[in-house]
């Protein structure tokens, strides 16, 4: 049995597969970012894009160091800290509305000196810790009712509402998916489950009517009928699919994808890095990258299965869910299976907050893995 194997462990040992997978994805991400930023543009623009590349390297270093720190501290300390982190996170989400800088009509960033960071990204980690703590402390053995899960729902609801108000549909969806993923580890009474499904079924049309902004709706409608909107959001989706299809089996080659190099991919280094990668490296490259994310997700489940307590297991599941949903939604949107929402590809997309958050998540996985 596994339990006796754990008891023989002398001390913390490094989880090599996890590190290797993370390092490979980060490396591929940097290589891909180089391709994505070296499009055929004039020198001034090129300089700006070079900045993008260099700053990404800084963020990888920062995130890597933070991951080591996070891995070093026994994760059970985070259970106690979770409350404070949660309050701090909510506070900074509130600050966004006061200090936030408006980018494309939604305020997501807080600027401190030269740096801008997105509290909503770090909140993902805090949310994982907070829900894991709830799961950890919930020692019931009977199937849960809605009443039992109410505190967890409340935990998600606050940051979810804040992020929806920014508005940031992608992140709010991720919050829900992380929470649901962790909570799905518990048994839930069938009637309660049905009630929840029914609630969602009612809530979605209502949200469509009263909560979603026009541009968010446009993304969904243009996803359903991309031909109808050839210049707007639907156009982006089509160009992304053209890029991926253009990759064919082996790809156009590094920095040779024309859709990217000639500027037909929108936001190619944050929202559509997968399209750049699949155009440069083709089906082979795309499957490799997807396999890496699949491995990372499954490895997180493996780490959870070997965790010594519910908190550790729940944290591992949470981080795994974060990586899984992020990569699935991002790639799904790039290949045209899902509507375009601004969700990053973990460890791969450009963006300081995103990469640091994911690396901290990897640190947590490492933490749980080392202390089983």
């Amino acid at each position, binding site marked *: 049995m596994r339990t006796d194997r754990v008891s023989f462990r002398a001390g913390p040992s490094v989880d090599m597969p996890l590190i290797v997978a993370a390092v490979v994805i980060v490396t591929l991400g940097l290589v891909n970012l180089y391709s994505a930023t070296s499009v*055929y543009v*004039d*020198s001034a623009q090129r300089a700006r894009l070079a900045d993008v590349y260099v700053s990404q390297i800084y963020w990888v270093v920062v995130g890597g160091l933070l991951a080591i720190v996070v891995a070093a501290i*026994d994760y*059970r300390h985070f*259970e106690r800290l979770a409350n404070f982190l949660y309050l701090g996170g909510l506070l900074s989400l509130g600050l966004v509305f006061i200090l936030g800088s408006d980018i*494309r*009509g939604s305020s997501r960033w807080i600027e401190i000196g030269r740096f801008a960071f997105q509290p909503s990204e770090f909140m993902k980690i805090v949310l994982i810790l907070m829900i894991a703590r709830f799961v*950890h*402390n*919930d020692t019931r053995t009977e199937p849960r009712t809605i009443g039992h899960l109410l505190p967890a729902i409340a935990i998600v609801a606050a940051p979810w509402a804040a992020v929806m108000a920014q508005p940031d549909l992608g992140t709010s969806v991720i919050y829900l998916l992380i929470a649901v993923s962790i909570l*799905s*580890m*518990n048994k839930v009474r069938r009637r309660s489950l049905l009630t929840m499904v029914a609630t969602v079924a009612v809530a979605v049309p209502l949200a469509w009517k009263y909560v979603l*902004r026009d*541009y968010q709706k*446009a*993304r969904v409608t243009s996803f359903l009928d991309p031909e109808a909107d050839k*210049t*707007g*959001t639907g156009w*982006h989706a089509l160009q992304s*699919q*053209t890029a*991926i*299809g*253009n*990759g*064919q*089996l082996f790809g156009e080659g590094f920095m040779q994808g*024309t*859709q990217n190099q*000639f*500027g*037909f991919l929108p*936001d190619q280094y944050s929202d559509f890095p997968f399209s750049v990668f*699949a155009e440069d490296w*083709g*089906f082979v490259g*795309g*499957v490799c990258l*997807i*396999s890496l*994310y*699949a491995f990372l997700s499954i490895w997180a*489940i*493996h780490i959870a*299965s070997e*965790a*010594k*307590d*519910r908190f550790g*297991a729940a944290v591992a*599941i949470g981080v*795994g869910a974060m990586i899984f949903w992020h990569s*699935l939604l991002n*790639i799904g949107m790039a*290949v*045209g299976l899902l509507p375009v929402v601004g969700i990053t590809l973990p460890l791969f997309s450009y963006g300081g907050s995103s990469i640091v958050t994911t690396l901290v998540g990897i640190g947590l996985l490492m933490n749980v893995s080392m*202390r089983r």
Partner: protein
Amino acid sequence: MSFLLQRSDVGEFRRRYRWLVLVVLVAFMVVIGRLVQLQLIEGDVHRAQARRNIVRERYLATTRGVLRDANGRVLAANRPSYTVYVTPSKIDLETTWPKLQKLLELDQDERKKLDERLRRVRAEALAPRKPGEKERRTEQQLLLQYDVDRDVVAWLETHEPAGVEVAPTPVRYYPYGELAAHLLGYMREVDAEALARLEGRGYRAGDRIGAVGVERRWESYLRGQRGMKKILRGLRGNLSRENVEALEAKYLEEPRRIEPVPGRDISLTIDIDLIASIERAMRGQLAGAVTVIDVRTGRILAAFSKPAFDPNVVSGGAGVAAAVDAFKRLISDPLKPLLDKNISAAYPPGSTYKPFTALAGLADGLIDPDYEVDCRGGYEYGRRFFRCTGVHRHVDLHDAIVQSCNTYFYDLGARISIDRLAAIGLDYGFGIKTGIGINPEARGRMPTRAWYTRRYKEAFRGGFTLLSAIGQGASTVSVLQLALAYAAIANGGTLYQPQVVRSIETSDGTIVQEFPPRVRRMVDVDAEHLKLVQKALEGVVKDRRGTANKESLEGIEMAGKTGTAQVTHVAPRGVDPEKVWYFNRDHAWFAGFWPARAPEIAIVVLVEHGGGGGKNAVPVAMRVVRDWIKLREKRLSARATQGSP
């Protein structure tokens, strides 16, 4: 590690892990399935689309062929013209815009209007992006001015201010303006209907196409073929030349460039100096037409229709607004300036038709040179009295033509069948199209018994034949038909196909195709009969009693026939012709040839509502022939000096 008690059991989770792994695998398999579809199954489609995205085909403009007259003078060419566009989002409002306003000499109104539009478009283009809106047309251009001054073009090209573009837009140029406008034609933008028809031949929206005249008929020769150049799209800023070339070599498929083929040049048969002289001779008249043809070839030497239009303006050479404005005026003008009165309109020929009636009578043996009629001012037929122009007493064929005696021809008309009259007319080319090829041709009409029955739905009356005999009634002819028929009289019975194009050349002057004269047929006529008529026509000018004698000029050996064609049935006799409403006045005709004894040219003058032919049409013909003689001598001596330097 005792600070945290292991309070909870991980056992509850155990059963879930396998399901989670399954969810992950299935989800990613779906994504990979989609990759299979996009990259492996539809890969070629997407690659083709990706190439289409970056490759653009730019058209390379061709130059339209030049039209020249018989002496090599350019009648239609292409003038460089420049249009200035501004990009409101890029232009500098502080320096460039005021400077541009000054350079283009915009007046207060234009300045205000353009300024408002520019600022509006600029505000739209530069407005912050709305959420979700990622791209926007920020490079919208405004047309600032058409056909800009050369100085302005030079300034713009040396300074190259941001947001200002000078685009070459060649304009068809007709150096002689209104002269020969109907024959040359003009250019217009190809309309949607024509475009649908011509798309296969490389026409695009916004292309210009020959509208009437030679420009239209010879469009396919004149047009040329536009070239094509493939370029890469999406390259921005200052990529080095080598970089761009390397990329082009990689992505542009052959052929990367197809050179444009310039249109064929066309040499016409007309002499623009002769047309200019006709224009001068016709200055005293409001409306009419003059055709001069070479009786030995059937080539058109001059065709003049009045009033005319300026093909430069209607082709858009002075701007679109000016062209629209011009058309509005031209269409509503009662003198019909857009109508080619040589080819596209038919008029009653009046007495100019008498020679053909005479030839019909001679052919059928109804008259001979000695046959005489006693003219007492008219002819009684049935219950009607058909008037003559005077009391000519005893006239034979010669006198009847010289003095234009109606009575003689009424007498002949009473004895000949109208169908026979029409048949002879048809032989000379009346009532059928001449085949000149340009402009819609008026067929004219040689009425027959059947025609009258159809038309009036009552019994045919003999009086109709009498009217036809003097070129009135239902008979109509076009100026061109009359000129060709007189040429046939002059040249001994050869009916030519009229020609306006002498040869087609490449842009470097090599002749591609020549058009030798084409005989339609030999008219079925006795040479003796022709001589009689020729002599009588000479008498019209030479004889003191001749209707054209008063206005004839010394030393010009002309032959011909005057005509005064009634326009209305209400003959305004005894009324001062000057007081008759213009559109009820008679048409004045003269049709003839020169020189009378060895004819070279035939000329037909029609002065619409000009009154008497002798008084109004003959002077025009005389002056034109006088000028032609001078031109002819000049050309001959020029040719002689060229031959022996």
